[in-house]
């Protein structure tokens, strides 16, 4: 049963990943990406990382996807298509991507048998995660957590600054809003 679910998810991920990067329409690419992200969330669930699952769904599939879709609506007319003619660039990229895939896959297949397979079942306690995130001991992550929070703040400010309409010398911000 588990195996079947896993392979369904794996198939979803593989197919929609490729579709997301080859589709001619932007909005479709974004939708395919959403499917991939949700399937990834499913994988996290299978690994018993419930918290990660929740974060993946809310932040990625929820937050980031909304951003993408908003951006697409702002910058594209519906029905815009992109040509995917086989230029030299595309061909070389296919070659490189497939080559890389094969090479890395070879390395993984060759090495992964050496590692010890072990799955601990059972749900991870939320309390445990919270303690680890807020603690200052070894294997606890208060500092990165705070750094991330600062980064988020900086990004909010930066995004606002960048996306703001530039005002010419005489104008004020309220003028430009009209």
């Amino acid at each position: 049963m588990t195996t079947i679910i896993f392979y369904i998810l794996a198939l979803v991920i593989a197919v929609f990943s490729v579709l997301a990067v080859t589709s001619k329409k932007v909005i479709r690419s974004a939708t395919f990406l959403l499917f991939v992200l949700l399937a990834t969330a499913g994988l996290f669930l299978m690994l018993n990382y419930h918290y990660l699952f929740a974060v993946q769904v809310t932040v990625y599939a929820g937050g980031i996807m909304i951003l993408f879709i908003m951006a697409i609506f702002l910058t594209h007319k519906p029905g815009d298509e992109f040509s995917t003619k086989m230029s030299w660039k595309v061909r070389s990229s296919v070659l490189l991507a497939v080559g890389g895939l094969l090479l890395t896959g070879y390395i993984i297949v060759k090495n992964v048998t050496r590692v010890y397979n072990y799955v601990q079942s059972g749900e991870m306690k939320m309390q445990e995660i919270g303690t680890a995130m807020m603690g200052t001991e070894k294997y606890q992550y208060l500092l990165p957590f705070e750094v991330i929070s600062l980064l988020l703040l900086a990004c909010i400010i930066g995004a606002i600054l960048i996306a703001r309409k530039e005002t010419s010398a005489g104008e004020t911000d309220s003028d430009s809003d009209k």
Partner: protein
Amino acid sequence: MEYTILILLLPLLSFLAVGLLGVKLKPCTAGLVGTITLGLVTALSYFTAYQFFTGHKVNGVWETLVPYNFTWLNVGENLHIDLGVLIDPISVMMLVVISTVSLMVHIYSMGYMKGEKGFQRYYAFLSLFTFSMLGLVLATNIFQMYIFWELVGVSSYLLIGFYYTKPSAVAAAKKAFIVTRFADFFFLIGILVLSFSTQTFDFGILMGGDESIFSTALGSTFMGASALVWAMALIFIGGAGKSAMFPLQVWLPDAMEGPTPVSALIHAATMVVAGVYLVARLFPIYIGFTPEVLHGIGYVGAFTAMFAAVIAITQTDIKRVLAFSTISQIGFMMVALGVSTSMTLNHSEHGGLGYMSSMFHLFTHAMFKALLFLGAGSIIHAVHSNDMKDMGGLRKYMPITHITFLIACLAIAGIPPFSGFVSKDEIMTAAYGFSTGMGVWMTITAGITAFYMFRLYYNIFWGKDYVVQGNHKPHESPLSMSFPLMFLAFITIVGGFIPFGKFVTPDRTVYDIHLDWKIAVISVIVAVIGIALATLLYKKDSKRPAELAAKMQGLYKASYNKFYIDEVYMFITKKIIFNGISRPFAWFDRHVVDGAMNGMAWVTGWSSEKTKRFQSGSMQWYAWVFLAGILLITLIAILAN
């Protein structure tokens, strides 16, 4: 005597203040700041002299005081460069000379330079020069002396080139700097040889009487002479450059392009005697270990004295006449040092007389030569020309300048009772004591000196009447200019009566100057003959000098052209060095060195032309290459396993 450090610091402060704030200050404020500072320095110097010569004597011998000395740089184990203040009879004497002349020049310049562009700059440079010169004489070690020596050279360069819009002034400044710098190169080598072999820079140790420190220098020989002889000779070359000894005298006449007060200060009274001071400072080493070098200095001085005197006869630019007379007089001082045969000086043993007379002459010469230059400046100020043919009959218009100039002329000619007579007579005595030939040679030179000085005097103040052009009449200079003249004239009159032997002698004991009547009478007669000859030829405007010149045309022309020394230099530099050495170097530089550089530039351009497509700015392309590189490296790593 810790306050002596102020003597150094005050001019430096004044230089910084006037130099940095010069643009903001009014010209007269800048002048006042400089002059008042120097007034203080002069007062301090006099007080130092008073205190030193009334107190610091141990067993009848003048002490050497070092109120300040701190280690500035440590070089190796034993060698260190100090900065400090050294007080002994000759440095105190130099303090008095420099500060007096410098103060007079500062006051004089207030009138002379009035309204000049760059007045503040002028005063800043004067302060800088005074600072460096005082630092030079107060140096406690030979390296400090060298540092200030170079500073003096720089400030001299700046002041000669004061009128930097005039090409001739710029050329003269460059010439002075290059020639003296060339000599300083040897000075530096000399210092290095000396200090390397003795392991000290310090005058106190070098003169301390410990002969063992020279054993290394005396032991090692190079080309048949000991290292010490080489060192002392090389050091003298440095002194010869600053003091314009033959054949390095070429820069001094050209240096007259600077403002006249500067000539009085630097190129007559202070900087040019630095070489004499240097030899006097190292006198114990010269006399104790390398007397042959010292006598060589004497011969160089004797030749220079005569040589410059002969040139001075034919020059028509009054400042140049004075410049050559300066060279000649410094030659006298060098002779006096060179004819010394021992350190002792008392009634039975006269070996050290030359040292004393040299210092004495340095003192008196500084005063009367500064007076002559300032007088010349006053004349130039009045008639706006340097040339004798534009002058004549000026005695009616400028009585003060006339009288003071006459006093200075009499002093330099050696007429009693003026100061020049006494000091020159001591030099003559020392020269006759060394050898009769030297004495006769110097006596003849003294006669020529009297002749050309009075030729100058008559051509300026007598001779043909001054032709008044338009409504511009020559007039006496303002008080700021005539006061220094009168003050210096006063010193020139009474200077000879200073019992100089009480203060400065080689062994630092008291020596009473007494005239050698025989020699005194001879030199006065010779001087009077010279003056009479000049009177005969130049007092009335006549054709006789021109006829005489026509008769001795060859000699006259050679002398007028300064014996073609400049041309020889030009020949050596232009023809030999430029064509023979510099031209091939230039070719090498242009074709090989530049060619290599151009080749490199071409290769760079070519390769960047070829590679610029890699820098397309396309991020995707970069990422592509990046990933391809990683994969390649991974592949290689796997295959290598």
